[in-house]
């Protein structure tokens, strides 16, 4: 009787060791073959023809241009969505207005829609024969098959990230801090800079990291509107595909390793932010 009691006090419900180790083992195995092995393979393949070839292929003019374009797209997309995301989150958490719920649903469209569809929609609207594009063409402005089009679809695809990070936090924090600041005499800008921004700082950085990661890696939408002009409208992900189709496997993997490297860096930074946040919450 007493030994039975002891056993039941040590094991919680569902703590069967067999189940536990079976599940943990299976998870580790799947993680390895689905995530870790492919990642290692990228770097292995990139260096298959030696380090010299690796760096030479990265320094090729078209590759350098693709890297530059990708960075340009990210550099333009991130600030736009940073501002837009803060505005969106502020609107839906601080104001009551008709259509607020609808807006919160609409902002997830870029997540729900396939990026290829997004690309096609932009082509339809802004292409030379499109509704807006035809008029722009008359003004001698070309958006599609040029870098502005790539930025536009990337902005579309990445627009929910910042707002999605901010909304739950701002809802949870409520508006009392802001009310307190206004009662104490703060102007709108003082309120934002000294109270709101510090409160949402970490979530904002987190949202920016995710936006950046997606902006760098986006393929589907970009491939529709880019026109794949080598050395002109090729971003890094498109460039990887072109090189691969040209049977330059090692070069393709070298470019891909760059993308993977950026991704790893992003994850590292994200882990750091999470660690910071947890530490901050622990002191709260």
């Amino acid at each position, binding site marked *: 009787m007493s030994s039975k009691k002891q056993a039941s006090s040590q094991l919680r419900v569902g703590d069967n060791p067999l189940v536990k180790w079976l599940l943990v083992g299976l998870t580790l195995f799947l993680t390895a073959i689905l995530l870790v092995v492919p990642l290692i393979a990228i770097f292995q393949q990139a260096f298959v023809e030696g380090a010299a070839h690796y760096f030479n292929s990265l320094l090729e003019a078209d590759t350098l241009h693709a890297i530059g374009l990708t960075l340009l797209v990210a550099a333009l997309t991130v600030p736009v969505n940073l501002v837009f995301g803060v505005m969106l989150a502020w609107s839906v958490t601080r104001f009551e207005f008709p259509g607020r719920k609808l807006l919160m649903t609409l902002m997830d469209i870029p997540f729900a829609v396939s990026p290829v569809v997004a690309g096609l929609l932009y082509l339809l609207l802004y292409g030379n024969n499109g509704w807006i594009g035809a008029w722009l063409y008359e003004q001698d402005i070309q958006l599609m098959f040029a870098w502005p089009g790539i930025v536009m679809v990337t902005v579309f695809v990445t627009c929910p990230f910042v707002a999605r990070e901010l909304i739950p936090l701002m809802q949870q924090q409520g508006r*009392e*801090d802001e*009310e*307190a*600041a*206004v*009662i*104490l*005499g*703060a*102007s709108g800008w*003082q309120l934002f800079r*000294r*109270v709101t921004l*510090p*409160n949402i700082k970490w979530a904002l950085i987190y949202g920016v990291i995710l936006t950046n990661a997606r902006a760098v890696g986006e393929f589907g939408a970009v491939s529709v509107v880019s026109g794949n002009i080598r050395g002109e409208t090729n971003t890094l992900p498109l460039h990887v595909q072109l090189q691969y189709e040209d049977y330059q496997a090692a070069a393709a993997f070298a470019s891909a390793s760059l993308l993977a490297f950026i991704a790893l860096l992003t994850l590292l930074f994200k882990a750091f932010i999470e660690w910071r946040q947890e530490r901050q919450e622990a*002191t*709260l």
Partner: protein
Amino acid sequence: MSILIEHISKTFGQFQALSPLSLDIQEGEMIGLLGPSGSGKTTLLRIIAGLEGADTGRIQFGDRDVTNLHVRDRRVGFVFQNYALFRHMTVADNVAFGLDVLPRKERPSPSEIKKRVMHLLDMVQLAHLANRFPSQLSGGQKQRIALARALATQPEVLLLDEPFGALDAKVRKELRRWLRGLHEELGFTSVFVTHDQEEALELSDRVVVMSNGYIEQVDKPGDLYASPNSRFVFDFLGNANVFEGKADQGKWLNQQASLQLPKGIEQQDGQLYVRSHEFFVSDAPTEQANLPLKVVAINPIGAEVRLELSPIGWQSKDIWEIDLPHKAFDQHGYEKGQTVFVTPKAGYFFADDLAQPTPLHW
């Protein structure tokens, strides 16, 4: 500064949060807005602060009409229920905030601000915590910092939303006394919201009892207790037992229970409200009353023992509560399940067709 509130009303969608109400608050007064949740007390406080706009009516601070003045320019002190301290700023920076955001022309020099902040922290006896963050403070400390922050700009009106709601009983009592002292020392006009009748009665110069967006009664605590003017106020101030009586031949009857009418009282049906300590308890009916009850619980509470009683052979909406001094209780030694008879000594009678009560004595 005096506050004049005239015909203020407010609706949220379909919900009438405040029906047009008026209130005149004297300079230096401490006013408690007392009522259950949903009574409109917090809405009224937020309208005074300017955090909500009223649908109708006007508000005046002294002889200045502030109805259309932005919160920022009303210059009131406001203490939030959950303190709303800025979590990323130190205690000192929190207190300094109201001074830091002043327009450059009015802003004191950094050293002057520092001096004023330290003075305020001394006043709330927390100068040693100046460099801590709000998350490192206890509830009572946060409350005092919130108060220091609200007072930094030297407002003439201080508004407090459930200031002691989230604190435990002992800290609450301490802070109440401390706030009262501060109020008397600095002489600002304060309005606070509470649902705790004890807090309202202890702290206020006058208590405003609210329900469903109306003001039920405005009175000094003593007067409010002595002469509640409605059933609601009576109920809300608590500790009253209600006897529903049909008048018949000089008695109020309720099934098998009966109670003699005091001399000189007109024969009317209605409810008799008797406070829990206005009773005499016996083992048998008295000449005046036959109110048999069964003891269902015995709770020693502070200086008294509370008996919870349920009627035998008559109807009452709620369980009756009767408070006895320990001495009287010990002498008799009541037990759970026992039958007792109670006789009221004094009470208030609300005739069915009247809102105003008549005080009774036997």
